[in-house]
């Protein structure tokens, strides 16, 4: 059982990892074909991950309803929304699930009249919370906070026409802040992130990092 649970996945990760890296640098047609096949496999596996996601979501909310946890009523809406969208998509104006989605059916109606406004409203509310949070947190307590505060005000004004109306060079100043100090910091962060990603990938390929296998490391 240890072979199936631990050794075999480690061997698969090592072999596929090495092949995937190697074929990226081999311009031969065979390598290209293999890469295409692997990419297709990945997409098929990714599709199955949706099923896992749906199961996980449904299971989580079923538990909440069963235990009548705080806010369990909202979990009913998860089931309601999921069932309505699923039925509408499968019915597909009488064309069935295998045909392309027909225009103007119940699925479209739900998407445009429920999902889109609900999702957009959630994001729209951010403006209110950002305003309140900015008022409370942007205090010039230290020199670093002053720099952050001035930069934030310049970017906020420079990004909208009212900034140009106040001072014609405001957008240029905003642009400079974004493309010089911001970019330098971002580039440093990105280099660190990607070096970390390379290190993690190598640790997984060589079996040093095993947490993805689940359970405790031995």
């Amino acid at each position: 059982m240890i072979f199936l649970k631990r050794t075999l996945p480690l061997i698969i990760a090592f072999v596929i990892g090495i092949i995937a890296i190697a074929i990226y640098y081999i311009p031969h047609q065979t390598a290209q074909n293999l890469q295409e096949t692997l990419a297709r496999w990945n997409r098929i596996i990714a599709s199955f991950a949706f099923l896992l996601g749906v199961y996980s979501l449904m299971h989580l909310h079923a538990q909440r309803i069963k235990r009548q946890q705080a806010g369990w009523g909202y979990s009913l809406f998860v089931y309601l929304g999921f069932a309505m969208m699923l039925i509408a998509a499968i019915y597909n104006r009488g064309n069935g699930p295998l045909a392309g989605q027909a225009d103007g059916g119940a699925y479209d109606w739900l998407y445009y009249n429920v999902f889109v406004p609900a999702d957009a409203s959630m994001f729209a509310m951010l403006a209110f919370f950002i305003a309140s949070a900015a008022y409370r947190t942007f205090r010039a307590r230290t020199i670093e906070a002053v720099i952050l505060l001035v930069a934030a005000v310049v970017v906020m004004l420079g990004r909208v026409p009212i900034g140009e109306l106040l001072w014609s060079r405001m957008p240029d100043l905003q642009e400079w802040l974004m493309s010089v100090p911001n970019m330098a910091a971002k580039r440093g962060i990105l280099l660190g992130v990607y070096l970390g990603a390379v290190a993690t990938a190598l640790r997984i390929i060589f079996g040093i990092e095993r947490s993805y296998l689940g359970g405790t490391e031995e």
Partner: protein
Amino acid sequence: MIDRLLNIDRRIVFLFIFVGVASAMLFRLPLPITPRPDVVSVYEGIDAVKGRPGGTVLLSFDYGPGSEPELQPTAINIMRQCFQNNVRVVGMALWPDAVGLARAAFDSASRACGKEYKKDWTFLGYKPGMETLIINMGQDFKSAFGQDYLGTDTNEMEVTRDITKLGDFDYVVTLAAGRTIDGVWITYAVDRYSVKLGGAVTAVMSPDMFPYLQSRQLKGLVSGLAGAAEYEKLVNVSGSATRGMQPQSVAHAIIIFFILIGNVMYFLQRRRDRLASPSGVASPSRFANPSGSRG
């Protein structure tokens, strides 16, 4: 008074934002909109496709309804620009919830410009896989998308018949609200398959894009609602993005106003405490969290 202004109830802040944004939507103010170089680059990149035989632009819809106000106007305006210049447009989605938005954009732009489905445009729909989908498209476009969203064979449609791989597209624009632009499009489509890529992103993402703009991995960038308004200016349209500049300007001004009030009161309070203190030093603990902060 100082303490009250230092701890304004958040509902008052919400009210100011609501009234400010709502009133800015009712009145029309003549605000200057000047297209920035990064936005002009996207416009010119698409304009350069004009006149090429079979010139085709690929639009990737990688956003959901939450980002619709910022990205949908750019999507529609790019389509209109393409259609008006007889450039074909192919759409696809890396986000499943973008499908309806993409269809709405195609319907709106193609109807306005009198363009035909299959001949001038098509929408391929959503497919999972992200990076691997791009690799598949780079190697063999037809194996990645054998059919479009409505089930039409991509070999049969005039718009996709001659496209064999991702590199055959004259220009690609990704409209992104997540990490697909740098994690997928730049890493694979640009670096691997030498695709000319322009981006349209939400304002919150634009600071992350500047390293790629400077390295020219990203040929141009339309960022946020402001970028969308600048694009509307370039295509001589006064649409929802241009109208959106008024409430956005007012919202930014209100936020700055409250930040200024907060800081002025903070310094007044500090001065008052310093004068009241026998040692002449204000207690730092009072300022550590003056609001007891709740967002």
